[in-house]
């Protein structure tokens, strides 16, 4: 069995554990390459079905073609979609694009609080998220099944042991578990798998006429393309084999302060 097949089988195992153990399970779908691979793996695990809703936290500042792509897959793949929005903050207009909040504050309200609200509304106790440990240092410390307390907070210093695919599936009322089936995948593995499975990804990842492509997708005002000539999945794989810059280098909110991302994550960000 080759390495990608190993990753795939492990992710399927985790998805099936999650589906068995959580009554109210949902999967976060950011429309990006990772969570779309995750969605594909769910179809693998459940033999063509996706037996739980997908949650998209919409900040309303997403790049427009992301929403079109989202709605097309929902139709084509027969998905249940739950869209979460922080209506209150959007109404008040206290956002970064309006110049009334810092980037990190904006992520905190539109994404983190938006997520919290949608989890509470639907009583989700298990949330499948496509984070990978190679993305970013605090994500490297994650577990496959990672508890969040009542305030969605993550206690990095005291995490449950995780042995032999026996995951933390027992939890106190009011807390919830984040499930990370892609934890051990790298950015390169994601693209290798997209190539192998021919998964349709959003064209924003491919270089345009200006020689730019998105390496990581987020909100339009805070996400910037990188210089690249990679026009196909194959080109991207070649490019990644030789790069030394980080994947999230085009994500401005990470850079506002040195530990911006860590703080967001401790507070319950994805």
């Amino acid at each position, binding site marked *: 069995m080759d390495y990608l097949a190993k990753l795939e089988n*492990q992710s399927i195992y985790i998805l099936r554990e999650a589906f068995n153990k959580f009554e109210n399970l949902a999967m976060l779908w950011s429309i990006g390459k990772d969570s779309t691979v995750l969605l594909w793996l769910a179809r693998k695990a459940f033999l063509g079905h996706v037996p739980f809703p997908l949650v998209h936290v919409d900040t309303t500042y997403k790049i427009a073609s992301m929403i079109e792509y989202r709605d097309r897959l929902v139709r084509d793949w027969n998905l249940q979609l739950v869209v979460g929005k922080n209506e209150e903050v959007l109404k008040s207009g206290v956002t970064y694009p309006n110049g009334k909040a810092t980037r990190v504050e904006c992520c905190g309200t539109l994404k983190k609080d938006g997520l919290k609200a949608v989890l509470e509304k639907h009583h989700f106790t298990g949330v499948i998220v496509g984070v990978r440990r190679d993305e970013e240092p605090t994500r490297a410390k994650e577990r496959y099944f990672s508890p969040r307390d009542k305030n969605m907070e993550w206690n990095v210093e005291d995490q449950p042991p995780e042995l032999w695919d026996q995951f933390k599936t027992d939890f106190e009322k009011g807390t919830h578990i984040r499930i990370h089936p892609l934890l051990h995948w790298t950015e390169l*593995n994601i693209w290798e798998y997209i190539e192998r499975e021919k998964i349709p990804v959003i064209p924003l990842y491919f270089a345009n006429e200006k020689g730019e492509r998105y390496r990581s997708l987020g909100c339009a005002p805070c996400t910037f393309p990188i210089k690249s000539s990679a026009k196909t999945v194959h080109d991207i794989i070649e490019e990644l084999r030789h790069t030394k810059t980080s994947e999230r280098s085009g994500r401005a909110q990470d850079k506002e302060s040195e*530990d911006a991302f860590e703080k967001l994550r401790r507070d319950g960000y994805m």
Partner: protein
Amino acid sequence: MTPTEQLKIVIVGHVDHGKSTFVGRLFHDTGSLPEGKLEQLQKIAERRGVPFEWANLMDALQSERDQNITIDTAQIWFQTKKRQYVIIDAPGHKEFLKNMITGAANAEAALLLIDANEGIQEQSRRHGYLLNLLGIRQIAVLVNKMDLQEYSQDRFEQIERDYRAFLKTIGVEPKLFIPIAAKHGDNIATLSKNTPWWTGPTVLAALDEFKVAEAPDNQPLRFPIQDVYRFDDRRILAGRVEAGSIKVGDKLLFSPSNKVSTVKTIERWNAPEISSASAGESIGVTLTEQIFVERGAVAALETDPPYELNRFKARLFWLGRAPFKMGRLYKLKLATQEAECEIASIEKIIDASTLETVVRDGDQNYVGRHEVAELTLRTKRPFAFDAHSEIVSTGRFVVVDGFEVAGGGIVADDIYPKRTADSLHKSGNIYWSHGKVTPQQRALRNGHSGCVVWLTGLSGSGKSTIATELERELFNHGQHAYVLDGDNVRHGLGSDLGFSPEDRKENIRRIGEVAKLFANAGMICITAFISPYRADRDLVRKILAGGPNQFIEVFVNAPLAVCEQRDPKGLYAKARANEIKEFTGISAPYEAPDQPEIELNTDQITVAESVARIMEYLHVQDEGTLISI
């Protein structure tokens, strides 16, 4: 293009023996650092007038960093010409052992560091012992800080000798020992001039010699059921092949239910159709004959099944804040099986750093935090398992205390009785029968609530056969079931009754009352009486309606002609010959149920399928009940 191979490694060793420094140097020497990172950190050190430390580099990347250092990337992996390496889990200070164990349990190889200056310390031994317990067989020992011992070959060899001797007592043989000085990069990527007596390999070369773990294809089949899917009209058993391989046509024995069926298809999505699957593959399986199987069952070939017992010997390490105590109940998880367990006996508590037996004053009946023990565990239900030395993935388990995984262990070798064809021999192993409990507690404990399964139908329709099979099936699932037998009732409880309509009615009423008592006692009470009159059956339904337990009417429906043809006791022939009067279906009416909970057309489905239908019904009911409790 071949996908990038990855090997997961864990780096362990006593505190301050140089793990962080080593990792920093490793990243640098493999060219894995982001552009400018090293220079940036060196400058910061210079500005603050402190010597640059390689360990800081790692800390910066791991975000356990000094305040002035900015993180802009994360690479917890590094690359050699051969493949990519992932370092599992960052060295952290708090809860280090828990993180180390989590890391090691997911790793395929380990590097264990020993400070040449300090020599073998407590954690050097503890980690060596735990690596072995966790099943890591690929270990290289790095004797670090050789610069502080003037690169002395004698010192290196002395440490190697001592540590090998320790490892030997626990049956571990490390691949090799390498003298290094992480700070200066000696023998990490290139051979060092400082150790001319060392001809290699370097650490990188040694890493590249490690093998990526292969799935155990050539062992006996173990396919633990993770879930049963019914997305369409098929029942698909989902799971991962943990050992061996499985193919269409294989006759599977399911433990602990002892049911047999044959593989009809192997299911995958968006993958080539292959009629077999081997170890490591997450697949779906459909069966030719529908039997009742649920999560936790382990499929094997009949020729080589796992052990199936409710006690086994284990070696266990404990991480829980509260000790692992005798007399308390915990949850045991092994493959996809789960059940309550308790300590039957503690043979030995071991200090993992000295391998000496821990002797405590007074209370010996617990395993404390960070202790290792040899003990015997007892589970509430029979478990299907293997000795860890035979099949790894069905030979290890975790213990859950409250909401937390608090311990882990492996099934030790022992003389476990092999399976026999007669599943009833398990009765000797069934335990737990204590007293004063509420109905809710009883339901939680039993894993099911009490109920009455009332089989009704013509003579020869299959009631008794289904009843006894159902009883055995439930029993094998560790559930409490009992068949109320017609003759037994007539001999005792109803010995004063005849066969007049009034007496028949009274007979059914008494059976109904007794069935209710059984149900209240938490049991699944199965009755198999023709019970031809709707009014009589409705009376029993009413008797149960007031209480917490359900009346499940099962209409065992076969056409009269079929029953008459079967005529197992020759009764139809006698009735036709007028030797029996008022025989139901011939000379007395049978009033079929209007709305039975279950209807079984036994002329169309097998006994096993009939039993599976009832099992499924009970199972779904119970999920609802137990959750609401």
